């Protein structure tokens, strides 16, 4: 029945126009329509955080947002976290601290952690653990992830932010 709807949104700093069906989630739109497969589908019901993106400045599960709701909005996905060839401090510390095994949850964790550190650069371990409660990892046991976020926060406090 309902056809495709025209949507215009700023994704990772770039104005993008696309067509999508109203029933498609933002996650489906990113992956299937725009070819941005960094955001992962884990549970597809708002529990695991693997599809986390920052939409209009707040952290959301892209599986719980309709693609058409992005109209006029601003979205940051894992593809927009690095600056060209330069990895974001979080991407660097996740590698250095071996904070991933299978890697499916990693984009979500990095986007979620970025949303926290952009807002609260001095977040402590308790705050980080609380903030990341909506991201599930079945491999690492979380300790290495939390340490990677703490290490990235340290790096980010010492280096001026690149926006």
């Amino acid at each position: 029945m309902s056809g495709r709807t025209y949507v215009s949104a700023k994704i990772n700093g770039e104005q993008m126009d696309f067509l999508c069906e109203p029933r498609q989630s933002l996650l489906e739109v990113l992956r299937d329509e725009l070819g941005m497969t960094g955001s992962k589908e884990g549970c597809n019901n708002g529990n695991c955080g693997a599809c986390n993106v920052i939409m209009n400045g707040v952290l959301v599960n892209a599986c719980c947002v309709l693609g058409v709701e992005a109209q006029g909005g601003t979205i940051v996905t894992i593809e927009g976290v690095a600056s060209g060839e330069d990895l974001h401090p979080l991407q660097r510390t996740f590698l250095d601290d071996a904070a991933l095994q299978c890697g499916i949850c990693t984009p979500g964790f990095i986007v979620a952690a970025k949303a926290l550190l952009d807002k609260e650069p001095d977040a402590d371990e308790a705050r980080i653990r609380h903030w990341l409660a909506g991201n599930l990892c079945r491999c690492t046991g979380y300790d290495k992830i939390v340490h990677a976020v703490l290490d990235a926060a340290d790096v980010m406090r010492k280096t001026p932010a690149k926006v």
Partner: protein
Amino acid sequence: MQAIEYIAPASLAEAIKVLAHHGGAARALAGGTDVIIQAREGRRNVSVMVDVKHIAETTELSLSPDGSLRVGAATSCARIYDNAEVARLFPALIESVSLIGGIQIQSRASLGGNLCNSSPAADSIPTLIALAATCEIAGPGGKRSVAVEDFCTAPGQNVLQPGELLVALTFPAPKPHSGAAFERFIPRNEMDIAVVNAAASVTLAADGSTFESGRIAMGAVAPTPLFVKAAGDALAGRPVSAATIDAAAAAASAAAKPITDMRGSAPQRTHLAGVLTKRVINKAVERARGA
């Protein structure tokens, strides 16, 4: 998900017109953290999603000079707990909205959505009842008001008729020497559905020694969130003492009619109803004495 139509009205009048036109096939879309998943999984039959986030009345968060509060139904949990003045005056509300899901859920999920989803275990509803909040509902026939304790009718069901929209929740200003609190029991620290939850609001005499009134509500102990009038009545006019609070907790346990499921057994829930009631009353008293 089945094919749907998406409409984003810019005014309340337009939203009511669209909802009335599509009747039972239409659902309001606020944060979408319940309704999108339910539509996708075929648990709710939705063919029209009416996005109510572009309407002034459903997105406002306003505190009157007298301390009464109006929360547009589509206002997110995060917007509520990020408001320092609301947090100062309504700490029980903050306790509820800051443990609905994780951060990702809280940044989208709305207070009105939590109520309209009408889960027996919803984490905001006992607090709304304890705080004597009122639902402002608009429909083709005009506006009406419903007390939150009368809103839910069965698991996932409520008094909204096709074409009607929950516009806002309104809260009376906290009285002098009053306090409120919310607690939830879950077997882990975050991201879980209540085994039992409870909220209390109490008003004390000026010297803090006697209860003037109290309102107690619980979740996950009946098919709908439960207003336990008898528990509040057990407080009114009595001294603030362990014996009085025990009597209110006993009334709460007696009112609980829980089921046994994967989250807990009926006897455990009945026990928890009393334990949580005692805790939230004690915390509410502490806050009332500090107020």
